[in-house]
């Protein structure tokens, strides 16, 4: 293997779109669940930590922030690791890290130690699991990829609904130390999911067995050339703006209900409604995005989902009673599910399989700042104005702005044409030849979705050309 990139996402392999892919999807589902629901599950223990260490609430909020920062901010690092070592080893190591962090945290004697263990180490472990799982999903699914993305994204609300009560039970039975220990054990299941990620190997042809290392095209450890893709830049920008306001309403809707005078249980039920609708919205949206006439325009479907979400926020800001909040939660659940199901599907469609491993790392890094700024600044706004209305309005504005950036950017900057098969063929051949040399920026503008689809449709022609430039006839 040496210093050559080990994992270049063999594009010569046709995506199975099923078979072992379902096992990969299952693993992805579980890892998505852990990654998104874990910060929430840990927050159940904060009250105890406050009492035991004599600290304030904002000190414990740091744990969540550090977890999020590691999940999002270590994106490029994960990309480099995946490109260097391959998906499965990185995931297995990630699972061990995540578990180890919590286990060590259960023996800690100061809050700073908990920041380092439950925050940094577990966060890093989860990140090393989450990104490669998406990359593998992208490799195993092509025709059914939107559905696969929707199904795996459903892991997030399912685990949110499951881990919170579980966290309460653990805290009640075992206190925070025992709870952390058992949560650490549960995180080891990420290793099981990692084991499921069987690498895809190109079909072995008799001649090809003679060529070991040099047939692999030299690929950078972190492919910054994605920045030359206009679609990617627009997506990254839009995603960062969106994340500023996307996660804010669920955080504040419960306190909004309590502020209006409703009892705790009724207020908490709002989140249950939201989560329940989210569980179903994601796979359904995935199915819709897979429809023949929707798929080439899934970027616009994504923009629509974001506009829907922003609009819901703006309407929700005006609700004055429980019924209004319930309606808000229902529509927010639908739009939030759509966004969740589509966000990585659209990125996969824009940059394609080859570059996805680098692209997702860079996008997550871009979102990291916004994720860390968004909810706390909304909290500050709430403290300053004492009105929940403004928080929802700002969130709605942010999400709608990102939708407009995405839609208009794609409409004006990227020329999207649905070509005939002949012209597609030309474009594909040009693409492949350029892949073996340095890619020129103009070709990046070629409609990558159409090309991707075309490439996947004709594997036989594909197999020899890309991986073996010397034998290219």
């Amino acid at each position: 293997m040496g210093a050559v990139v080990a994992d270049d996402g063999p594009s010569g392999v046709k995506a199975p779109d099923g078979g072992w892919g379902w096992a990969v999807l299952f693993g992805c589902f579980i890892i998505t669940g852990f990654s998104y629901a874990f910060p929430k599950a840990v927050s159940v223990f904060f009250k105890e930590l406050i009492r035991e260490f004599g600290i304030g609430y904002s000190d414990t909020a740091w744990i969540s922030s550090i977890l999020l920062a590691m999940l999002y901010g270590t994106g490029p690092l994960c990309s480099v690791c995946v490109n260097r070592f391959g998906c499965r080893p990185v995931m297995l190591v990630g699972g061990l890290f995540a578990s180890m962090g919590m286990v060590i945290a259960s023996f800690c004697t100061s809050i700073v130690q908990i920041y380092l263990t439950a925050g940094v180490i577990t966060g890093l472990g989860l990140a090393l699991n989450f990104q490669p799982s998406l990359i593998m999903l992208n490799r195993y699914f092509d025709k059914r990829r939107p559905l696969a993305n929707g199904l795996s994204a459903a892991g997030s609300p399912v685990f949110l609904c499951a881990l919170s009560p579980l966290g309460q039970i653990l805290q009640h039975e075992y206190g925070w130390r025992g709870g952390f220990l058992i949560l650490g054990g549960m995180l080891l299941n990420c290793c099981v999911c990692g084991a499921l990620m069987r690498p895809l190997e190109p079909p072995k042809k008799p001649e090809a067995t003679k060529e070991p290392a040099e047939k692999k095209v030299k690929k950078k450890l972190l492919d910054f050339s994605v920045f030359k893709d206009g679609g990617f830049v627009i997506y990254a920008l839009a995603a960062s703006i969106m994340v500023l306001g996307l996660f804010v309403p669920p955080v504040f809707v419960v306190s909004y209900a309590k502020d209006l005078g409703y009892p705790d249980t009724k207020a908490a039920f709002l989140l249950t409604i939201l989560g329940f609708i989210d569980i179903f919205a994601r796979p359904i949206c995935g199915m819709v995005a897979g429809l023949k006439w929707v798929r080439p325009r899934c970027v616009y479907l994504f923009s629509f989902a974001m506009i829907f979400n922003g609009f819901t926020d703006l309407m929700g800001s005006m609700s004055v009673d429980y019924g209004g909040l319930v309606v808000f939660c229902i529509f927010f659940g639908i739009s939030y599910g759509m966004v969740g199901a589509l966000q990585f599907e659209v990125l996969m469609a824009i940059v394609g399989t080859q570059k996805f491993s680098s692209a997702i790392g860079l996008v997550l890094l871009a979102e990291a700042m916004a994720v860390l700024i968004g909810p706390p600044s909304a909290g500050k706004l709430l403290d300053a104005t004492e009105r929940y209305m403004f928080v929802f309005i700002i969130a709605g504005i942010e999400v709608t702005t990102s939708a407009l950036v995405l839609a208009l950017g794609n409409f004006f900057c990227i020329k999207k044409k649905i070509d005939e098969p002949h012209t597609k063929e030309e474009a594909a051949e040009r693409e492949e030849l350029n892949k073996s040399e340095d890619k020129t920026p103009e070709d990046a503008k070629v409609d990558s979705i159409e090309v991707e689809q075309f490439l996947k449709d004709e594997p036989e022609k594909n197999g020899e050309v890309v991986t073996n430039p010397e034998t290219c006839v």
Partner: protein
Amino acid sequence: GPDVTTQDLKPAGKENPSNVSVYEIVLSGVSGSPLERNISVASPTKVELSCKLDKNSQIKNPQVTWKKGSDTISHTTKSENSWSIQVTILDSSQLGSYSCILKGKQEISAVFHLQVPKIEGKDKPIITYEGDAAVMVCKTDYIPIAWTWYMTNGSKQVAINDSMPAKKYVINRQSANATRLKVLQLTKEDGGLYWCEATFQLGKSKGKLELKVLSIMAPLKPFVAIVAEVVIFVTTIFLYEWYSKKKEKRAGDEREFDQIERL
């Protein structure tokens, strides 16, 4: 909306120059269970308790009596539709339940409970482990003169003071209205009920906490079970993969063999 009958009543917002807090209950005239209010008093003060009749009520010009327990209070003031009394609280004997009874066609009443402030303990038990340290905190809204901690030994309450081993218990005043007890080197016998008692100028008030001491084995059993499950799954998955690769290779070799045979 939330149930307000047993809420701690804060002063109605009117503060006279003589620093008297006014507490008011509005009666609607519908006879049912008496309306009650809890008022926390920590130090000597003057309070004015007032019962106001709702303007939509059917009762007109009722006969009003104020009572403390069963004794009638004579010095009452009336204004428009409200009747009030002034109570000067100097020591614990002035605390108790004060009720106003409005007699018209029906009899309706309201009760003010003047009492020492309640202490916030913890209703759920605190879980700790052997060898670890436990931290118990008691808070209240008012500032007590002193705090005392008690532990239960059998059925007796034993005060935690200097007669106890110094290395075991550490009490410090976390802030003006909170106290913290730290129990070090926990053993199973340290589990049970603990009481924190706040001494106010007007009396004492207790809060309850329960401590549970578990052994390390308790969470370790589920943990080991999960680890075992993970190891079994991972091994099974890798074995299955190795086995199916072997099968594929054998099938591929057979196909090659057939091809060569045909040639």
